[in-house]
Protein backbone atom coordinates (compact mmCIF):
# COMPACT_ATOMS: atom_id res chain seq x y z
CA UNK A 1 0.00 0.00 0.00
CA UNK A 2 1.45 3.35 -1.02
CA UNK A 3 0.95 6.76 0.42
CA UNK A 4 -2.12 8.91 -0.07
CA UNK A 5 -0.70 12.21 -1.21
CA UNK A 6 -2.97 15.17 -0.85
CA UNK A 7 -3.08 17.84 -3.52
CA UNK A 8 -4.43 21.20 -2.34
CA UNK A 9 -5.93 24.15 -4.21
CA UNK A 10 -3.63 25.65 -6.85
CA UNK A 11 -1.22 22.78 -6.42
CA UNK A 12 -0.10 19.68 -8.31
CA UNK A 13 1.92 16.57 -7.58
CA UNK A 14 3.62 13.88 -9.58
CA UNK A 15 4.05 10.38 -8.14
CA UNK A 16 4.43 6.69 -8.98
CA UNK A 17 2.62 3.48 -8.02
CA UNK A 18 1.75 2.41 -5.39
CA UNK A 19 0.97 5.97 -4.33
CA UNK A 20 -2.50 7.48 -4.58
CA UNK A 21 -3.04 11.16 -5.32
CA UNK A 22 -6.10 12.72 -3.67
CA UNK A 23 -7.89 16.04 -3.92
CA UNK A 24 -10.85 16.83 -1.67
CA UNK A 25 -13.94 18.87 -2.37
CA UNK A 26 -13.59 20.12 -5.92
CA UNK A 27 -16.37 22.54 -6.80
CA UNK A 28 -15.86 24.66 -9.87
CA UNK A 29 -12.19 23.79 -9.59
CA UNK A 30 -10.91 21.34 -12.16
CA UNK A 31 -8.98 18.20 -11.28
CA UNK A 32 -6.64 17.12 -14.05
CA UNK A 33 -4.81 13.82 -14.06
CA UNK A 34 -2.11 12.72 -16.47
CA UNK A 35 -0.89 9.14 -16.61
CA UNK A 36 1.87 7.11 -18.17
CA UNK A 37 0.67 3.51 -17.86
CA UNK A 38 4.04 2.16 -19.01
CA UNK A 39 5.83 3.62 -15.96
CA UNK A 40 2.82 3.73 -13.60
CA UNK A 41 3.71 7.36 -13.25
CA UNK A 42 1.26 10.23 -13.15
CA UNK A 43 0.24 13.57 -11.79
CA UNK A 44 -2.80 15.34 -10.40
CA UNK A 45 -3.49 19.08 -10.46
CA UNK A 46 -6.24 21.05 -8.68
CA UNK A 47 -6.79 24.31 -10.55
CA UNK A 48 -9.05 27.24 -9.74
CA UNK A 49 -9.02 29.27 -12.92
CA UNK A 50 -8.81 28.62 -16.65
CA UNK A 51 -5.89 30.81 -17.70
CA UNK A 52 -3.47 33.35 -16.34
CA UNK A 53 -4.72 36.92 -16.18
CA UNK A 54 -3.22 39.22 -18.74
CA UNK A 55 0.20 40.53 -17.88
CA UNK A 56 0.17 38.83 -14.49
CA UNK A 57 3.03 36.79 -13.15
CA UNK A 58 1.70 33.92 -11.08
CA UNK A 59 3.45 32.71 -8.00
CA UNK A 60 1.57 29.44 -8.36
CA UNK A 61 1.25 28.44 -11.98
CA UNK A 62 -0.87 25.39 -11.06
CA UNK A 63 -3.63 27.79 -10.06
CA UNK A 64 -4.49 27.87 -13.74
CA UNK A 65 -5.57 24.89 -15.79
CA UNK A 66 -3.23 25.86 -18.57
CA UNK A 67 -0.16 26.32 -16.37
CA UNK A 68 -0.95 23.21 -14.36
CA UNK A 69 -1.04 20.93 -17.41
CA UNK A 70 2.16 22.33 -18.85
CA UNK A 71 4.00 22.07 -15.53
CA UNK A 72 2.82 18.55 -14.92
CA UNK A 73 3.87 17.45 -18.40
CA UNK A 74 7.29 19.01 -17.84
CA UNK A 75 7.73 17.18 -14.58
CA UNK A 76 6.50 13.88 -16.00
CA UNK A 77 8.91 14.13 -18.91
CA UNK A 78 11.73 14.89 -16.49
CA UNK A 79 10.74 11.75 -14.57
CA UNK A 80 11.24 9.66 -17.70
CA UNK A 81 7.87 9.77 -19.41
CA UNK A 82 7.28 10.52 -23.06
CA UNK A 83 4.55 12.74 -24.47
CA UNK A 84 3.41 9.87 -26.71
CA UNK A 85 2.48 7.72 -23.72
CA UNK A 86 0.57 10.27 -21.67
CA UNK A 87 -3.19 10.10 -21.28
CA UNK A 88 -5.52 12.40 -19.37
CA UNK A 89 -8.74 12.46 -17.37
CA UNK A 90 -10.73 15.40 -16.03
CA UNK A 91 -13.11 15.81 -13.08
CA UNK A 92 -14.81 18.79 -11.47
CA UNK A 93 -15.83 22.09 -13.04
CA UNK A 94 -19.23 22.20 -11.37
CA UNK A 95 -21.44 25.23 -10.91
CA UNK A 96 -22.10 25.16 -7.17
CA UNK A 97 -24.41 28.10 -6.60
CA UNK A 98 -27.38 27.62 -8.85
CA UNK A 99 -27.92 31.09 -10.22
CA UNK A 100 -24.47 32.56 -9.73
CA UNK A 101 -23.91 32.30 -13.44
CA UNK A 102 -27.24 32.24 -15.22
CA UNK A 103 -25.77 31.02 -18.48
CA UNK A 104 -24.04 27.84 -17.38
CA UNK A 105 -21.84 28.14 -20.45
CA UNK A 106 -20.32 31.27 -18.99
CA UNK A 107 -19.63 29.82 -15.55
CA UNK A 108 -16.10 29.47 -14.27
CA UNK A 109 -16.50 25.70 -13.97
CA UNK A 110 -17.46 25.41 -17.63
CA UNK A 111 -14.56 27.62 -18.65
CA UNK A 112 -12.17 25.48 -16.65
CA UNK A 113 -13.44 22.39 -18.44
CA UNK A 114 -13.13 23.83 -21.91
CA UNK A 115 -9.66 25.17 -21.15
CA UNK A 116 -8.62 21.72 -19.95
CA UNK A 117 -9.88 20.06 -23.13
CA UNK A 118 -8.27 22.72 -25.29
CA UNK A 119 -4.81 22.51 -23.74
CA UNK A 120 -4.86 18.71 -23.84
CA UNK A 121 -5.84 18.80 -27.50
CA UNK A 122 -3.06 21.27 -28.29
CA UNK A 123 -0.54 18.98 -26.67
CA UNK A 124 -2.12 15.95 -28.35
CA UNK A 125 -2.69 14.16 -25.07
CA UNK A 126 -5.71 11.85 -25.41
CA UNK A 127 -8.54 12.61 -22.99
CA UNK A 128 -9.72 9.13 -21.97
CA UNK A 129 -12.59 10.03 -19.66
CA UNK A 130 -14.18 12.85 -17.74
CA UNK A 131 -16.75 13.46 -15.03
CA UNK A 132 -17.37 17.17 -15.20
CA UNK A 133 -20.01 19.86 -14.81
CA UNK A 134 -23.23 19.54 -12.85
CA UNK A 135 -23.92 21.21 -9.54
CA UNK A 136 -22.14 18.95 -7.08
CA UNK A 137 -18.76 18.83 -5.42
CA UNK A 138 -16.36 15.96 -5.99
CA UNK A 139 -13.49 14.27 -4.20
CA UNK A 140 -11.05 12.49 -6.48
CA UNK A 141 -8.56 9.69 -5.88
CA UNK A 142 -6.09 8.77 -8.55
CA UNK A 143 -4.60 5.31 -8.22
CA UNK A 144 -1.21 5.28 -9.91
CA UNK A 145 -1.07 1.49 -10.00
CA UNK A 146 -4.09 1.28 -12.31
CA UNK A 147 -4.57 4.77 -13.72
CA UNK A 148 -8.15 4.69 -12.49
CA UNK A 149 -9.73 7.84 -11.13
CA UNK A 150 -12.28 7.36 -8.36
CA UNK A 151 -14.77 10.23 -8.14
CA UNK A 152 -16.81 10.55 -4.98
CA UNK A 153 -19.71 12.93 -4.46
CA UNK A 154 -22.54 13.34 -1.99
CA UNK A 155 -25.22 13.42 -4.61
CA UNK A 156 -24.10 10.96 -7.22
CA UNK A 157 -22.17 8.49 -5.07
CA UNK A 158 -18.94 6.97 -6.23
CA UNK A 159 -17.90 6.25 -9.80
CA UNK A 160 -14.64 5.16 -11.34
CA UNK A 161 -13.49 6.50 -14.64
Amino acid at each position, binding site marked *: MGDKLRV*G*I*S*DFQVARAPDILVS*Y*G*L*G*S*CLGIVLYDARLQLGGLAHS*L*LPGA*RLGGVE*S*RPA*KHVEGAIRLMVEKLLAAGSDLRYLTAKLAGG*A*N*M*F*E*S*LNPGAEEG*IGARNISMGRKVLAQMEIPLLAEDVGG*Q*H*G*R*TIEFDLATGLLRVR*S*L*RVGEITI
Partner: protein
Amino acid sequence: MTLVPLNDVQLDALKEISNIGMGHAATALSQLIGQTVHLKVPRITIADIADMPELVGGAEEVVVGITLQIFGDARGTILLIFPRESATQLLVRLVGKKPEDLIFDELSASALKELGNILASAYLSALGGLLHMTLIPSIPLLAYDMAGAVVDNVLIELSQEGDLALMVETEFHGQSPDDEVIRGHFMILPDPRTLDVLLEAGKGSYGG
Protein backbone atom coordinates in the same frame (compact mmCIF):
# COMPACT_ATOMS: atom_id res chain seq x y z
CA MET B 1 0.67 39.52 -2.93
CA THR B 2 -1.78 42.34 -3.23
CA LEU B 3 -2.85 42.66 0.39
CA VAL B 4 -1.00 45.32 2.31
CA PRO B 5 -0.01 44.00 5.71
CA LEU B 6 -2.18 45.68 8.30
CA ASN B 7 -0.80 47.33 11.42
CA ASP B 8 -2.27 46.80 14.87
CA VAL B 9 -4.35 49.96 14.82
CA GLN B 10 -5.90 49.02 11.51
CA LEU B 11 -6.59 45.48 12.68
CA ASP B 12 -8.24 46.80 15.83
CA ALA B 13 -10.39 49.20 13.87
CA LEU B 14 -11.48 46.45 11.52
CA LYS B 15 -12.20 44.12 14.41
CA GLU B 16 -14.26 46.71 16.23
CA ILE B 17 -16.28 47.61 13.16
CA SER B 18 -16.96 43.95 12.52
CA ASN B 19 -17.84 43.24 16.11
CA ILE B 20 -20.62 45.79 15.95
CA GLY B 21 -21.80 44.63 12.55
CA MET B 22 -21.86 41.00 13.53
CA GLY B 23 -23.57 41.85 16.79
CA HIS B 24 -26.43 43.23 14.74
CA ALA B 25 -26.47 40.11 12.62
CA ALA B 26 -26.60 37.88 15.70
CA THR B 27 -29.48 39.89 17.13
CA ALA B 28 -31.35 39.47 13.87
CA LEU B 29 -30.73 35.73 14.00
CA SER B 30 -31.89 35.53 17.62
CA GLN B 31 -35.15 37.21 16.74
CA LEU B 32 -35.64 35.00 13.75
CA ILE B 33 -35.23 31.69 15.55
CA GLY B 34 -36.50 32.84 18.94
CA GLN B 35 -33.39 31.80 20.80
CA THR B 36 -30.43 33.73 22.15
CA VAL B 37 -27.46 33.53 19.86
CA HIS B 38 -23.97 34.12 21.16
CA LEU B 39 -21.11 35.47 19.16
CA LYS B 40 -17.42 34.99 19.49
CA VAL B 41 -15.26 38.06 19.10
CA PRO B 42 -14.49 38.19 15.40
CA ARG B 43 -11.13 36.98 14.25
CA ILE B 44 -9.34 38.73 11.48
CA THR B 45 -7.10 36.46 9.55
CA ILE B 46 -5.13 36.79 6.42
CA ALA B 47 -5.41 33.29 5.14
CA ASP B 48 -3.93 31.50 2.22
CA ILE B 49 -6.74 30.71 -0.18
CA ALA B 50 -5.62 27.09 -0.26
CA ASP B 51 -6.27 26.78 3.48
CA MET B 52 -9.81 28.11 3.42
CA PRO B 53 -11.62 24.75 3.24
CA GLU B 54 -9.84 23.66 6.44
CA LEU B 55 -10.91 26.80 8.24
CA VAL B 56 -14.56 25.90 7.85
CA GLY B 57 -14.18 22.35 9.09
CA GLY B 58 -12.46 20.41 6.32
CA ALA B 59 -12.90 20.07 2.57
CA GLU B 60 -15.23 17.07 2.75
CA GLU B 61 -17.43 18.28 5.58
CA VAL B 62 -21.04 18.63 4.46
CA VAL B 63 -22.16 22.22 4.83
CA VAL B 64 -24.72 24.73 3.72
CA GLY B 65 -23.13 27.77 2.16
CA ILE B 66 -24.97 31.02 1.56
CA THR B 67 -23.12 33.70 -0.32
CA LEU B 68 -23.89 37.32 -1.17
CA GLN B 69 -21.95 39.95 -2.98
CA ILE B 70 -21.45 43.35 -1.42
CA PHE B 71 -22.16 46.26 -3.72
CA GLY B 72 -22.00 50.00 -3.24
CA ASP B 73 -19.11 52.02 -1.81
CA ALA B 74 -17.13 48.88 -1.07
CA ARG B 75 -17.01 45.50 -2.76
CA GLY B 76 -16.59 42.07 -1.39
CA THR B 77 -18.23 38.78 -0.58
CA ILE B 78 -20.09 37.51 2.44
CA LEU B 79 -20.04 33.79 3.05
CA LEU B 80 -22.12 32.03 5.68
CA ILE B 81 -21.30 28.42 6.39
CA PHE B 82 -23.48 26.16 8.50
CA PRO B 83 -22.52 22.57 9.27
CA ARG B 84 -25.20 20.12 8.15
CA GLU B 85 -26.61 19.51 11.65
CA SER B 86 -26.89 23.21 12.38
CA ALA B 87 -28.65 23.87 9.10
CA THR B 88 -31.12 21.14 10.02
CA GLN B 89 -31.70 22.73 13.42
CA LEU B 90 -32.23 26.10 11.79
CA LEU B 91 -34.78 24.66 9.41
CA VAL B 92 -36.67 22.99 12.23
CA ARG B 93 -37.04 26.40 13.83
CA LEU B 94 -37.71 28.34 10.64
CA VAL B 95 -40.07 26.09 8.71
CA GLY B 96 -40.81 23.33 11.20
CA LYS B 97 -39.32 20.41 9.32
CA LYS B 98 -36.09 18.64 8.59
CA PRO B 99 -34.69 18.35 5.10
CA GLU B 100 -34.71 14.90 3.59
CA ASP B 101 -31.18 13.78 2.99
CA LEU B 102 -29.42 16.22 0.70
CA ILE B 103 -32.45 17.74 -0.92
CA PHE B 104 -33.96 21.01 0.17
CA ASP B 105 -37.47 21.71 -0.92
CA GLU B 106 -38.17 25.17 -2.21
CA LEU B 107 -39.45 26.43 1.12
CA SER B 108 -36.38 25.28 3.05
CA ALA B 109 -33.94 26.64 0.49
CA SER B 110 -35.79 29.91 0.43
CA ALA B 111 -35.83 30.13 4.24
CA LEU B 112 -32.07 29.62 4.43
CA LYS B 113 -31.46 32.21 1.74
CA GLU B 114 -33.66 34.65 3.56
CA LEU B 115 -31.70 33.95 6.72
CA GLY B 116 -28.51 34.80 4.84
CA ASN B 117 -30.13 37.93 3.52
CA ILE B 118 -31.18 39.09 6.98
CA LEU B 119 -27.79 38.45 8.54
CA ALA B 120 -25.93 40.12 5.71
CA SER B 121 -28.23 43.12 5.66
CA ALA B 122 -27.96 43.59 9.42
CA TYR B 123 -24.19 43.44 9.18
CA LEU B 124 -23.92 45.73 6.20
CA SER B 125 -26.29 48.36 7.49
CA ALA B 126 -24.38 48.54 10.78
CA LEU B 127 -21.08 48.68 8.96
CA GLY B 128 -22.34 51.22 6.46
CA GLY B 129 -23.78 53.42 9.21
CA LEU B 130 -20.51 53.37 11.07
CA LEU B 131 -18.40 54.14 8.04
CA HIS B 132 -20.84 56.47 6.29
CA MET B 133 -20.95 54.20 3.32
CA THR B 134 -23.75 52.71 1.31
CA LEU B 135 -23.39 48.94 1.28
CA ILE B 136 -25.95 46.78 -0.47
CA PRO B 137 -26.17 43.00 -0.46
CA SER B 138 -26.91 41.09 -3.66
CA ILE B 139 -29.49 38.33 -3.73
CA PRO B 140 -28.33 35.33 -1.69
CA LEU B 141 -27.21 32.11 -3.34
CA LEU B 142 -27.29 28.72 -1.73
CA ALA B 143 -25.24 25.55 -2.02
CA TYR B 144 -25.38 22.34 0.00
CA ASP B 145 -22.34 20.17 -0.50
CA MET B 146 -18.75 19.49 0.55
CA ALA B 147 -17.16 22.54 2.18
CA GLY B 148 -14.26 22.57 -0.26
CA ALA B 149 -16.60 22.70 -3.22
CA VAL B 150 -18.82 25.37 -1.66
CA VAL B 151 -15.89 27.57 -0.77
CA ASP B 152 -13.96 27.34 -4.01
CA ASN B 153 -16.57 29.16 -6.06
CA VAL B 154 -16.27 32.09 -3.71
CA LEU B 155 -12.50 31.98 -3.78
CA ILE B 156 -12.25 32.24 -7.51
CA GLU B 157 -12.88 35.92 -7.64
CA LEU B 158 -10.31 36.59 -4.95
CA SER B 159 -7.78 34.27 -6.47
CA GLN B 160 -7.64 36.38 -9.58
CA GLU B 161 -6.02 39.08 -7.49
CA GLY B 162 -3.67 37.06 -5.35
CA ASP B 163 -3.19 34.01 -3.17
CA LEU B 164 -4.28 35.51 0.13
CA ALA B 165 -7.68 36.50 1.45
CA LEU B 166 -8.45 38.79 4.31
CA MET B 167 -11.16 37.18 6.30
CA VAL B 168 -13.24 38.57 9.10
CA GLU B 169 -14.75 35.53 10.70
CA THR B 170 -16.88 34.71 13.68
CA GLU B 171 -18.59 31.69 15.08
CA PHE B 172 -21.98 31.92 16.67
CA HIS B 173 -23.86 29.39 18.69
CA GLY B 174 -27.20 29.04 20.35
CA GLN B 175 -27.55 28.42 24.06
CA SER B 176 -30.29 26.10 25.20
CA PRO B 177 -28.68 23.04 26.79
CA ASP B 178 -31.37 20.57 25.70
CA ASP B 179 -31.14 21.48 22.05
CA GLU B 180 -28.47 20.72 19.60
CA VAL B 181 -26.23 23.71 19.33
CA ILE B 182 -26.42 25.83 16.23
CA ARG B 183 -23.03 26.83 14.94
CA GLY B 184 -21.98 28.80 11.95
CA HIS B 185 -19.22 30.79 10.34
CA PHE B 186 -19.81 34.30 9.14
CA MET B 187 -17.08 35.48 6.81
CA ILE B 188 -16.47 38.77 5.10
CA LEU B 189 -14.02 38.70 2.27
CA PRO B 190 -13.39 42.25 1.06
CA ASP B 191 -11.97 42.60 -2.41
CA PRO B 192 -8.31 43.48 -2.02
CA ARG B 193 -8.89 46.87 -3.58
CA THR B 194 -11.75 47.59 -1.23
CA LEU B 195 -9.74 47.07 1.90
CA ASP B 196 -8.07 50.45 1.62
CA VAL B 197 -11.45 52.13 1.29
CA LEU B 198 -12.71 50.40 4.42
CA LEU B 199 -9.66 51.27 6.45
CA GLU B 200 -9.70 54.85 5.32
CA ALA B 201 -13.34 55.22 6.31
CA GLY B 202 -12.65 53.45 9.61
CA LYS B 203 -10.00 56.01 10.47
CA GLY B 204 -12.56 58.80 10.35
CA SER B 205 -14.86 56.94 12.71
CA TYR B 206 -12.23 56.11 15.25
CA GLY B 207 -9.91 59.06 15.06
CA GLY B 208 -7.01 57.00 13.73
